[in-house]
């Protein structure tokens, strides 16, 4: 089944409908419309290219949030093998918004930490729409310590609108659970690769996002605040989210340019949901390439480079520097 179209994809759909009509007509009337069909196909292709090569930040966000987009567990099935889910933070509970466990990627035995969203209401309630509680971040930390102890590389799959803003999350100190992960990930004595696969929602994303390499799928976004939240504050209305999305420079290509991420993983035309399997293969190859490099480095080198990587982030005006 074809995924539900997004607003900006309507022109393509319209043309595809016309092509269908043309073909039907040709068959019914037994007229040779070969040339018309050919030219229509070419037109569809060029429209498609026109749309997908000039995606605005806001359009990419629609793709990143598409319910048919592959989620973390889809990648764990298609890109990884033998996933063994491990549960609980040994303190309070097991956060279903953040599944985690062992998985193999090629020759590597990994610890994988992920945000997981749901496709329908029932699944979304179970996964809390991909917004983790402190338990999720603390489970992640517990398993990172395990990875460190047994020298397994850590792979994180980031896909969250943000850490959960709720009473329970505050009562159990969601800020602290994220802050501790930032500090501990900076010093974790094993390789870490983070991949933003969909939504990279602020602190909730960063809470499993400090890594030796940070990769992003082509249509994922990673932002300090949701475009809606930013629009509500700076434009006084959420309807200005498209402008905010543009201003925040939150796309994979923008962030590569700003030095926030290391590489962009390509998606099939139209986005990951048009060919989840191909996307999984792309992700697999990209992460494997990084693990090949990182697992050969001495831990002391890894930690020094990781510190320096984040140390140089930020732009300031320094007197005497022109």
């Amino acid at each position, binding site marked *: 089944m074809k995924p539900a179209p997004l607003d900006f994809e309507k022109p393509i759909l319209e043309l595809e409908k016309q092509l269908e009509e043309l073909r039907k007509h040709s068959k019914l009337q037994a007229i040779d419309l070969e040339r018309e069909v050919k030219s229509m196909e070419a037109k569809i292709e060029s429209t498609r290219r026109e749309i997908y090569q000039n995606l605005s930040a806001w359009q990419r966000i629609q793709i990143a949030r598409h319910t048919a987009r592959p989620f973390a567990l889809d990648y764990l099935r298609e890109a990884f093998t033998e996933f063994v889910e491990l549960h609980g933070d040994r303190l309070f509970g097991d956060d279903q918004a953040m599944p985690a466990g062992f998985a193999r990627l090629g020759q590597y035995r990994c610890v994988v930490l992920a945000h997981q969203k749901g496709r329908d209401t029932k699944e979304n309630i179970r996964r809390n729409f991909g917004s983790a509680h402190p338990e999720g971040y603390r489970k992640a930390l517990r398993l990172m310590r395990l990875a460190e102890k047994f020298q397994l590389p850590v792979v994180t799959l980031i896909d969250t609108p943000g*850490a*959960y*803003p*709720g*009473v329970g*999350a*505050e*009562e*159990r*100190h*969601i*800020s*602290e659970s*994220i*802050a*501790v992960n*930032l*500090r*501990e990930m*900076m*010093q974790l004595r094993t390789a870490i690769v983070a991949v933003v696969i969909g939504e990279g929602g*602020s*602190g909730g994303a*960063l*809470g499993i*996002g*400090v890594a030796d390499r940070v990769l992003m799928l082509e249509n994922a976004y*990673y*932002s*300090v*605040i949701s475009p809606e*939240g*930013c629009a509500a*504050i*700076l*434009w*006084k209305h959420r309807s200005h989210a498209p*402008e*905010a999305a543009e*201003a*925040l*420079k*939150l796309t994979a290509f923008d*962030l590569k340019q*700003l030095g*926030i991420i290391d590489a962009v993983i390509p998606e099939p035309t139209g986005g990951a949901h048009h060919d989840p399997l191909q996307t999984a293969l792309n992700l697999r190859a990209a992460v494997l390439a990084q693990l090949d490099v990182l697992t050969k480095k001495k831990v002391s080198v890894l930690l020094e480079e990781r*510190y320096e990587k*984040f*140390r140089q*982030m*930020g*732009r*300031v*005006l*320094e*007197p005497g520097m022109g």
Partner: protein
Amino acid sequence: MAIFPKPSLKLGKNLKKRDMPEGLWQKCPECGEVIHQLELSRNLKVCPKCDHHFTFSAAERIQSLLDPDTFQEFDAELASVDVLNFKGVATYRDRLKSYQAKTGLRDAVITGFGSIEGHRSGLAVMDFNFLAATMGSVVGEKITRLIERSTADRRAVVIVSASGGARMYEGMLSLMQMAKTSGALARHAEARLPYLSVLTHPTTAGVMASYASLGDLILAEPKCMVGFAGPRVIRETTHQELPPGFQTAEFLKEHGFIDLIVHRRDLRSTLARLLDYLGA
């Protein structure tokens, strides 16, 4: 029938509400007491009647905590850059300019070395008057440098926080300051040096989810607001009633997060005593 008309309470209320002459008097938002500025300053900006803690500027805080003439400021000239060329309703450039003019500060934090009752420390104080003390590259860089210098000089670090969170005008560069500062604290901790985090009204979001939460000890001023998400966002997301006192220092102490709630007048001596216990 009453001989005198009932006094109009409304009028009285209006009279009370009338604005005070600019600059001389200030009304306590908690108890309504009208306090002369001089008296308020002498009392460390704490209401003499109800102990409400008013916003304290970074300069006032430094003066109240450090031994006289021991402060050596770092990186005072560091200024923010509009890297993203951010254009909203107001541009980032304009916002920076207006806050610099309003506060006389270059950005939202002052950092340096100084002594707290003889304890040689690295001190960072955020100033909520500057763009809600949001953390952009300058705040992150100054705090990171302070921590690194303190590690190299084997000093304790004291950070007095107040913040609306990450500075969205700098996009992801501001979010990354959370990782950067936390990394510097990891190395400071590895060197077995103490870090005391002091939370003041209000400390939230990105700052709360990084260095403000990472103190060996966490102190807070009475009744200050401390949290990750704002109460409005929580109410809108969860449609839940918020418990009484939610996200106050007292609430967080009850929920096991804060070591000590300290009145502003006692902060200096409390910090000194704690640093003493930690051998700094």
